[in-house]
């Protein structure tokens, strides 16, 4: 009897072990961020009236009242203040925003000057805007970081905010500060305080190792989730950043798994012998879309993030795949070859009223609804693969890139930037790139190795 029980235990445990055998060490769960100095909203207009690209911003080191040790920096809070200003400067510069000057080229303000700038010190430096900040070690080990934006011509404060962060999350305070400056000066929603999941690629073209990896929006805090023993593809962060869905060949077949960041465990999105592809979250995180092939015919299904019965949303012969919800969750844009070639369609969230959107010539694939709701980004295939956007009614196509193979767009949380991956001809080398909605500021994101399938999450909770 005991033997039988032991056998049964092994039998039950085995599939779970196989399911998890490609997983590395689980990443730490993020700490909570507390806002201590609420922004008071818009306080008067900005004096600068030129092109925002030319707006000079001075970002000296953040001051500290007392240099104290912190796990965030081995030299203490004074050195951390320089790092904070460097992160803010790099964020703005790398995204082609404004004309930032960082702490390495500027004098260092005193702690008392943060709320009362020494205008004379900054007025002859040609900057229209001044950023001041401070960092303080708290008795509970956490850090308080404050961020202030001043208009030099008006000699007045435009906005301020402060945050209490665990030391491990100090970079998030710099991202919050970047977002505060960006939003105040452009009127756009924030995007820096967010993360990206993607696939890290190494090895020769015919034997690539593909690992699930995550990083902050600026490439910092990079972590591999899987070891690379099995091929991993197409990840997506849950809106609360607690889970990732992605495709893994860990049991030898392509299957969608839900990976829990807290526990480091993963489960199949649906108990089926059929292959599953192309997972996507609903904006509220309650549902997962996935595509499943049955006898070679692929359709789109919806399942509760808690599991349970799946609902089939498409039943056209051919390949229906992918899917991206409108921000209000009422519609889904997806890809289908029911007309004979890959094209973009839209349907209601329950699968009804399916209509074709793309009539541009060539093929149209991988649609992603903008978080602002007004645009759909996709891959337009006419010989070469280009990233394009269109209105949600299928009109007004605009190409954002022009290269041999750019695919799989993903939106910045504020819908102003599109990220994608670019594959090089012959070598098969891949990298993450991003471009503004205007087609400007195209740049490659730094990743430790080759990279594909970027998925940009929302603003961190």
């Amino acid at each position: 009897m005991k033997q039988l029980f032991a056998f049964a235990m092994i039998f039950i445990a085995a599939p779970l072990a196989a399911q998890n055998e490609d997983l590395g060490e689980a990443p730490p769960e993020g700490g909570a961020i507390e806002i201590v100095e609420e922004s008071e909203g818009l306080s008067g207009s900005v004096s600068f009236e030129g092109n925002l690209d030319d707006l000079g911003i001075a970002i000296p080191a953040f001051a500290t009242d007392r240099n104290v040790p912190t796990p965030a920096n081995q030299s203490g809070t004074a050195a951390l203040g320089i790092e904070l200003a460097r992160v803010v400067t790099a964020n703005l510069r790398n995204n082609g925003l404004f004309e930032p000057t960082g702490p390495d080229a500027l004098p260092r303000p005193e702690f008392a000057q943060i709320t009362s700038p020494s205008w004379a010190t900054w007025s002859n430096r040609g900057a229209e805007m001044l950023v001041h900040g401070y960092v303080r070690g708290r008795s509970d080990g956490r850090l308080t970081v404050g961020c202030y934006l001043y208009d030099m011509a008006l000699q007045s404060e435009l906005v301020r905010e402060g945050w209490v962060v665990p030391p491990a999350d100090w970079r998030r305070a710099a991202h919050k500060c970047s977002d505060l400056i960006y939003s105040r000066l452009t009127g756009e929603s924030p995007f820096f305080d967010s993360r990206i999941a993607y696939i890290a690629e190494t090895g020769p073209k015919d034997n690539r190792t593909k690992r699930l990896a995550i990083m902050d929006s600026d490439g910092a805090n990079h972590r591999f989730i899987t070891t690379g023993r099995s091929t991993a593809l197409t990840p997506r962060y849950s809106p609360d950043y607690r889970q990732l869905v992605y495709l893994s060949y860990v049991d030898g077949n392509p299957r969608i798994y839900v990976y829990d960041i807290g526990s480091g465990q993963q489960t199949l999105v649906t108990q089926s012998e059929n292959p599953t592809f192309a997972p996507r979250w609903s904006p509220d995180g309650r549902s997962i879309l996935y595509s499943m092939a049955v006898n070679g015919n692929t359709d789109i299904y919806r399942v509760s993030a808690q599991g349970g019965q799946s609902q089939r949303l498409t039943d056209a012969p051919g390949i229906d795949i992918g899917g991206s919800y409108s921000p209000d969750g009422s519609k889904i844009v997806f890809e289908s070859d029911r007309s004979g070639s890959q094209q973009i369609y839209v349907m209601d969230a329950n699968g009804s009223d399916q209509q074709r959107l793309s009539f541009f010539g060539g093929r149209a694939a991988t649609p992603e609804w903008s978080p602002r709701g007004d645009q759909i980004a996709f891959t337009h295939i006419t010989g070469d693969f280009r990233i394009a956007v269109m209105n949600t009614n299928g009109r007004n196509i605009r190409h954002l890139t022009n290269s041999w193979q750019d695919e799989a767009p993903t939106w910045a949380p504020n819908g102003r930037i599109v990220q994608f991956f670019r594959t090089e001809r012959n070598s098969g080398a891949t990298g993450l790139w991003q471009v503004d909605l205007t087609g400007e500021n195209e740049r490659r994101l730094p990743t430790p190795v080759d990279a594909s399938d970027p998925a940009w999450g929302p603003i961190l909770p």
Partner: protein
Amino acid sequence: MNTRFAATILAVSTLAVAACQKKPPEELPPPPQQTTTPTPAPTAGPAAGALGTQQHFTNAVGAANTVVYFDTDRYNIDTSSSAKLQNQGRYFSQHSNLTFTIEGHTDERGTRDYNLALGERRANAAKNYLVSLGIPASRIRTVSYGKERPVELGSNPTAWAQNRRAASVVIN
């Protein structure tokens, strides 16, 4: 040879030949002489791997017959593919204890998700053809690798044609 299998293969060969003609007749013509490759010798040579290995399968049907190819974005079994699959069908009919896998692949000129689905569709097209020859579906597993596992590494039409494939694999 299994007589049911022999009858099936004749009928399928007829269909394949009929498909080659410009206008298929309403009624099928009388069965022609079998035009497909003669049945390979099932006896393994001294150098051959044991039954149940990919080596044994390849030696028996010929390496070229273990892989079928597809046109861009297509998944239909053409005449050349059907001849190859008939060879495979004879082998798997003779060795009725063998289970095997058909791996579906695409070229690199497609988006990742779609190519996974397309590779699955190709693997299933090959599987369905073998099932039509009398091989039980329960013996055939399919798996799609999409564009993830090319055999030819160039970025040109010749390489792409080699990568759009369904490969039958005996895994022991």
